[in-house]
């Protein structure tokens, strides 16, 4: 691993390594330039605006937020597809954003990516064999026998039986659930330390979702994988994660272990999410849900101070609309960015 030796550790990285964190996100900012008709800068889309957290080895966390909250940009930055504007992504003590392309390959082989759209995530003109061989070939596994062995092994792990039947098939011959299993297999085939799953089940049928979530959880436990599970559906997180991070308008507003969050959520936005998530109950039809009106804010001109303040039922004038709240910690491992806890 001479690559690691080449890169000198910064103090932050050394600290992260000491903490035993696999992945450390430090004050990450990802801003996209907004160009007006190709000339001149019209401003920035502040997709991720100051996010910090650590992910331990083998830990599963969920990032929950609605569309436009920046979770996709966060995910792409973690995957190395986008360069951060400020701040850093540190993996095993190595700053990822400083890596050059050859060194990136090492990082990329350690992170598996599971996408939302199972059909779109697979090249329609490649067979399952081809799709699964690609990451191996790119990462230098030249021996065909070894490749086939690994393909067999990984297909067994995602429970596609009999393996031989599926290898020559093309994506359009598979059901949604089977396609997603191939996507998961592809993410695992390089034996990564970490998986990033972006809404992995939201495009699947209800009856298949549970199956896939179970499969992911099983893989996480057996391989001691760290998983970042990104979703907008709060009801699935309890089956899959240990900690939940709630994201709004580019910032993390609450971080807590699952039980703490579900029972003692503190941020008004988290409350709103929970209120808006229904369980099947006939009584639901008889009452109106108490949810804040309006829409998530534009990330080009986000509201001043706390970004949720225009919709917050508990907004404190001259505080919430002026100054961004820091992270308060009402109990260990529970951080909330809300002035209500001052």
């Amino acid at each position, binding site marked *: 691993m001479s690559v690691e030796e080449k890169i000198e550790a910064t103090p932050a990285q050394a600290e992260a390594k000491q903490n035993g964190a696999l992945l450390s996100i430090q004050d990450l900012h990802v801003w996209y330039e907004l160009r007006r008709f190709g000339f001149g800068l019209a401003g920035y889309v502040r997709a991720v605006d100051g996010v910090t957290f650590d992910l331990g080895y083998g830990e599963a966390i969920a990032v929950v937020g609605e569309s436009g909250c920046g979770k996709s940009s966060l995910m792409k930055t973690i995957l190395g597809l986008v360069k951060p504007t400020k701040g850093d992504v540190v993996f095993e003590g190595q700053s990822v954003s400083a890596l050059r392309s050859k060194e990136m390959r090492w990082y990329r*082989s350690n*992170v598996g990516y599971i996408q*939302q759209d199972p059909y*779109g995530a697979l*090249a329609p003109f490649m067979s399952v064999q081809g799709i699964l061989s*690609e990451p191996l070939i*790119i*990462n230098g596994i030249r021996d065909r026998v070894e490749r086939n062995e690994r393909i067999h092994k990984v297909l067994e792990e995602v429970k596609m039986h009999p393996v031989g039947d599926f290898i020559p098939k*093309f994506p359009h011959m598979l059901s949604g659930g089977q396609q997603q299993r191939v996507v998961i297999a592809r993410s695992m085939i390089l034996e990564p330390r970490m998986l990033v799953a972006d809404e992995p089940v939201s495009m699947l049928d209800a009856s298949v979702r549970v199956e896939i979530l179970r499969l992911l959880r099983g893989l996480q436990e057996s391989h001691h994988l760290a998983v970042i599970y990104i979703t907008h559906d709060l009801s699935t997180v309890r089956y899959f994660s240990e900690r939940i991070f709630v994201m709004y308008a580019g910032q993390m507003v609450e971080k807590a272990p699952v039980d703490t969050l579900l029972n003692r959520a503190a941020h008004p936005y988290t409350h709103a999410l929970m209120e808006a998530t229904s369980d099947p109950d006939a009584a639901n039809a008889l009452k109106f849900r108490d949810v804040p009106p309006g829409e998530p804010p534009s990330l080009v001109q986000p509201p001043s101070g706390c970004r949720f303040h225009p919709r917050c039922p508990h907004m404190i004038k001259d505080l919430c609309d002026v100054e961004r709240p820091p992270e308060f910690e009402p109990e260990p491992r529970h951080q909330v960015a809300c002035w209500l806890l001052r």
Partner: protein
Amino acid sequence: MKRLLKNFREIRRYPSAVIGLLIILGLVATAIYTLIAIPYPEAIRLWRGGAGVWDEYPKLAPPAWVNLFRSKKVPETIFLKSTEGEAERQVEQRSEATQIITLTYSFDYNYDEFPQELVVFFDPRYETLTPTLSFAAFTWRTPDGRETSLGSVSLTPEVSFRPSQDPALLRKLKKFIPEGVVFSDKKLEQGIPAETVLFLDPNQPEPAPLKGTYTLIIKVTTFEPGADVEASFVSYGQLYGIAGTDHYRRDLTVALLWGAPVALSFGLLAALGTTVSSMAIAAIGTWFGGVVDQAIQRITEINMVLPFLPILIMVGTFYSRSIWLMLALVVLLTIFGAGIKNFRAIFIQVKESPYIEAARSYGAGNMRIVFRYLVPRIIPMVIPNLVIGVPTYVFLEASLAYLGLGDPSLPTWGKIINDANAQGALYNGQYYWVLEPAVLLMLTGLGFAMLGYALDRIFNPRLRGM
């Protein structure tokens, strides 16, 4: 790959595609046969000619099978060679140096029309470098026993005797015309050719040939020891072969056959070259974006404005007409055209696909993504365009040849039409000369178009079922 093949099998459902495919296969088979049976050097020899290559053939003769449609049988060429023993040979030794060699040619003539021309080719052989020339005298005998002398000629090497070109002989022959045969005034004005006179049937008021066995007796007197002579007698018919002949007496079959591989290879190479290059360049531009993409787009736009055919004509007129140069130029000018714009539109969409993002996430390099992930996506859509494009280039090559800018050394269909046009074929009623290459060109276009449009329906699912 397997998916492509499965799609190809769909072709069976479209009758037009099957017909198109058969036509194309026929052309390909012709091309292969031609390349084997008449290899390039042979083809050049037959086409560019030189000494004696075309002698056997009549000039401007329609194909022989035309006789099937006619009630009056038009004569075919009769070729008798003394070297092949088709003449009776008698040698009389008069003295030590003098010999009289008599060559007698007999042939049956049963046609309803007169031969085009009569020629005797001589191949005199002398032992000394400056010999005393031998001397040949001709006698002509008709089936009904009439005889006349046709004069004499001295045998310089490679001399040929053409009765129709000897004005003195023509005057003499006037006496040979049987009474009772009436010629129109117009014919009398033009002059009656020797071939007509020698074959006239005395019993018919309208000029018609007498059928039966004719004999030509050539008496050659040699004045040196060791001198010898061989001769060939030709009665040129008015028809020849499968395809007829042109003004140089060339058998058109050579050019028609050779046109097939030339047209097919030009068309296929041009179509493939432009399509593959356009795909690759569009993919690279779209993927890398930025300056690369902008540069490619601007080059394309400028190129699309340039006049295509005039540029080809200029290069052909002022520089070189080599077909390879033309091919390269055509490909170059076409790559940066509408193809790139269309492909780019599709690639821009495909670029955003999740599987491309996934490829980046497991470390695929840029070139790999372009060629292994982007380009294969549009191959099914490109195949029909490729097939339909082939006849465009075939016609382009033919057009250039027709304009006189074709490769001068190659026998191609366009060249035939060019020659025909230059010789005023349509005015002279030599329709076969124009029709034969034209039909072949149309057939090529038809075959590829039918197959191509059927493939379009197969590969483009939105058009399915139409």
